[in-house]
């Protein structure tokens, strides 16, 4: 894999941060949020700031923009020097003039970052109105031009469109256009692609690079995704707990990380190398899905009109095996999961769990069968009842199925140990745990039912890589122990590669390709699968082993 290896030390230095300290407003003695950050960015350079959530990446960027939430955070020391202009001591007016002209920023979630009630054209034009004295028509012309530059189709229509009428990619392009319309010296991009599908992500990354080359902009790129870093960075700064623990040119960092933390971070990164196929047991399939179909809305005859979220989905899973459904948002992968769980009622096809057809059962009939299949959701913060003690959550299911309370409690305690949580967790409430821990609890809750099938719907997507790796480990462990069949829904091919025996690739509600992970991921037959794989950032690099992949397929990607 080729990395950027330009030497930019000669180029003029746009941003110089020295010993920056940010803390809670009015509480100088409290634990600082940023502690002595040093940072240099030169013109044309792409400087990546990586780190796990809470490491202070975003705070750094906001501090640079002078946008720290007043009543929460404040700069308590150090300088942020923008080519001789001291930002930390600037007046609001000065900052206003600075923004968009010299520093611009794009954010993670283009949907929320754009004002939903203003036409996107206006929102770009507003920048010109604020900072230039262009005439109405000139401003509009300039706006259309920049929209062209970010490769928006049919700019005249989009100019007059509202954010909700555009796709995620288009919105992010608007954000970029808005940021670059006055071509600033520094562009701060805070997780600009995290909310996007891989294919779109790739395009946006390309776009940023292109714009950067065209305008010679310096880019401070914030991300948690080592893959992305590998793709775009000149220089990388690794952040942990408000400090920069290591800074190095990209290649150096990926091949020879000095810091322990960096190593840990890298080893956790999953790569596209599929796990070695496990021998398929000859036991009967635990889950068999036959021609599953789900159509939303659409009048009396559901098939007529309506949105076909899933159609003609067929696969099965044997005990102890893991099948992954991969696809981008809107591919219908979650719909399938929810149909199987009967959280929604499929409009067609069969779902056979442990020998019973459940797709057409009434909710009441279904009751007794529920214990056979359980689910783990994506968002660890919402999948546990915040008002219930962990114990109560863990016991809910067993008690529903007639287990005496005492027994259920005892079992819950064991499960907690299994998922590596302290026993005293029993009496605590979810908000007292971290995301990873909550996900463990959720898994324990599902396992408590001793199900034959476990559905994991994007179960690790919301977690930091290191945690992600651990949870994946836990799932695998649980599977081994109880021989559970697992249906693993994910948008991330690299994760799928780590855990799945078989893979189903979905697009627009249809299965485009399915088969053993090894086959599908190494020599995909369908173009869509191929595009997914190609879009996977850093796909040629084996982060865990600090070297390129190529020919290393055989080697198993370590997961923890």
């Amino acid at each position: 894999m080729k990395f950027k290896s330009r030497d930019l030390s000669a180029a003029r230095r746009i941003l110089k941060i020295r010993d920056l300290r940010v803390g809670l407003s009015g509480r100088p003695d409290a634990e600082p949020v940023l502690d002595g950050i040093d940072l240099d960015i030169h013109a044309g350079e792409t400087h990546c700031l990586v780190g796990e959530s809470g490491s202070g990446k975003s705070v750094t960027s906001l501090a640079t923009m002078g946008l720290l939430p007043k009543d929460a955070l404040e700069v308590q020391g150090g300088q942020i020097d923008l080519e001789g202009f001291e930002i930390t001591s600037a007046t609001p007016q000065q900052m206003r003039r600075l923004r968009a002209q010299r520093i611009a920023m794009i954010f993670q979630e283009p949907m929320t970052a754009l004002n939903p009630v203003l036409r996107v054209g206006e929102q770009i034009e507003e920048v010109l109105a604020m900072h230039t004295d262009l005439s109405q028509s000139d401003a509009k012309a300039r706006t259309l031009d920049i929209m062209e530059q970010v490769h928006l189709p049919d700019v005249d229509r989009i100019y007059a469109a509202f954010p909700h009428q555009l796709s995620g990619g288009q919105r992010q392009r608007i954000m970029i256009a808005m940021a670059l319309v006055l071509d600033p010296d520094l562009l701060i991009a805070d997780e600009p692609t995290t909310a996007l599908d891989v294919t779109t992500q790739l395009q946006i990354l390309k776009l940023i690079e292109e714009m950067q080359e065209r305008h010679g902009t310096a880019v401070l790129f914030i991300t948690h995704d080592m893959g992305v870093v590998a793709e775009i960075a000149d220089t990388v700064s690794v952040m942990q707990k408000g400090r920069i623990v290591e800074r190095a040119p990209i290649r150096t960092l990926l091949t020879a990380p000095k810091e322990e933390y960096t190593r840990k971070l890298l080893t956790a990164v999953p790569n596209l190398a599929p796990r070695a196929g496990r021998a398929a047991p000859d036991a009967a399939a635990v889950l068999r899905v036959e021609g599953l179909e789900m159509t939303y809305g659409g009048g009396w005859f559901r098939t007529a009109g309506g949105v076909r979220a899933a159609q003609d989905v067929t696969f099965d899973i044997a005990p102890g095996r893991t099948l992954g459904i991969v696809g981008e948002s809107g591919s219908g992968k979650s719909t399938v999961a929810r149909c199987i769980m009967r959280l929604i009622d499929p409009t067609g096809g069969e779902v056979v769990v442990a020998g019973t057809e459940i797709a057409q059962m009434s909710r009441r009939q279904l009751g007794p069968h529920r214990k056979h299949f359980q689910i783990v959701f994506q968002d660890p913060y919402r999948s546990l009842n915040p008002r219930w003690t962990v114990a109560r959550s863990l016991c809910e299911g067993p008690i529903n199925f007639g287990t005496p309370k005492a027994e259920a409690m005892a079992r819950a305690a064991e499960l907690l140990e299994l998922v590596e949580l302290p026993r005293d967790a029993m009496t605590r409430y979810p908000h007292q745990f971290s995301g990873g821990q909550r996900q463990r609890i959720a898994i324990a809750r599902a396992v408590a039912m001793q199900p034959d099938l476990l559905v994991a719907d994007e179960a690790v997507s919301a977690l930091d890589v290191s945690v992600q790796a651990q949870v994946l480990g836990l799932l695998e462990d649980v599977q081994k122990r109880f021989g559970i069949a697992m249906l693993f829904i994910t948008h991330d091919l690299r994760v799928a590669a780590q855990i799945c025996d078989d893979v189903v690739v979905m697009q627009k509600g249809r299965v485009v390709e399915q088969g053993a992970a090894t086959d599908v991921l190494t020599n995909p037959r369908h173009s869509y699968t191929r595009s997914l794989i190609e879009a996977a950032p850093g796909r040629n690099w084996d982060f865990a082993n600090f070297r390129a992949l190529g020919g290393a397929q055989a080697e198993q990607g370590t997961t923890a």
Partner: protein
Amino acid sequence: MTELPGSRHSAFQVLSGMLSLPAGARVGIGPGLAALVLVAIVVASICAPLYVPHDPLAMDAMARLRPPSSEHLLGTDPYGRDIFSRVMTGGRVSLLIGVGAAIVSVTVGLAIGLVAGFFRTVDGIVMRIMDSLMAIPAILLAIALVALNGPSLGSVIIAITVPEVPRVVRLVRSVVLSAREEPYVEAAIALGSSMPKILLQHLMPNTLAPLIVQGTYICASAILIEAILSFLGAGVSTEIPTWGNIMAEGRSYFQIKPGLIFWPGLLLSLCILCINLLGDTARDLLDPRMKKREG
């Protein structure tokens, strides 16, 4: 409310929410002060019979509209009754009406709202009826209801409650509708929990926080509406002094004996002010969005 299953935890949550304030939601001295004043007024009202110098009903035709004196701290009303005694005793009834109305409407509204929110079948009909009730101006409805049952304490409370119920129902319903989308509710379904169990143990607790807030507002407005009803001649009988009917009786004496309106008015306003302040604080603390932002 506390004996309902599941609510024990939510009550705990509410408390813990109140105590462990999120960093941003620093409560000023305001609420503390409010609570203090409120408690003072409540206690003073409840204990009124113990210390008021005169029987609030004892009339003295020869001592009408007397100015404040050592014997009559705030003077006497048109019946020669001791204003101080009446105002203090009046507090009990007014507060009773406020709290009563709050509890009744919240309880009734909660029940209807839960059902409407969860069982689509009845939802349509119930909500139509609620809309209709909401469309009738509260005061007019209340007057009519009082005319129906006579202005006894009970009927005044009912009259104030009926117009409030729909608002509570809507609140509960909306909370239920959003909560039933929560993954943990879906998890509960997956765990085979029965509908009633989900309703009472998972969904209902979500409604309690907003209901507590709503309750305080109802309580406050109930006290006000009672006053207005008295003003329009549809209030509690003058034999049972309330801040409302004391003011109503005194209203035509506004210029020659402002005390008749001023004192009950002052206490009433203070009371409502405090209740509302506490309500606001509760809302800020219990507001999930707030939590998300701070925590």
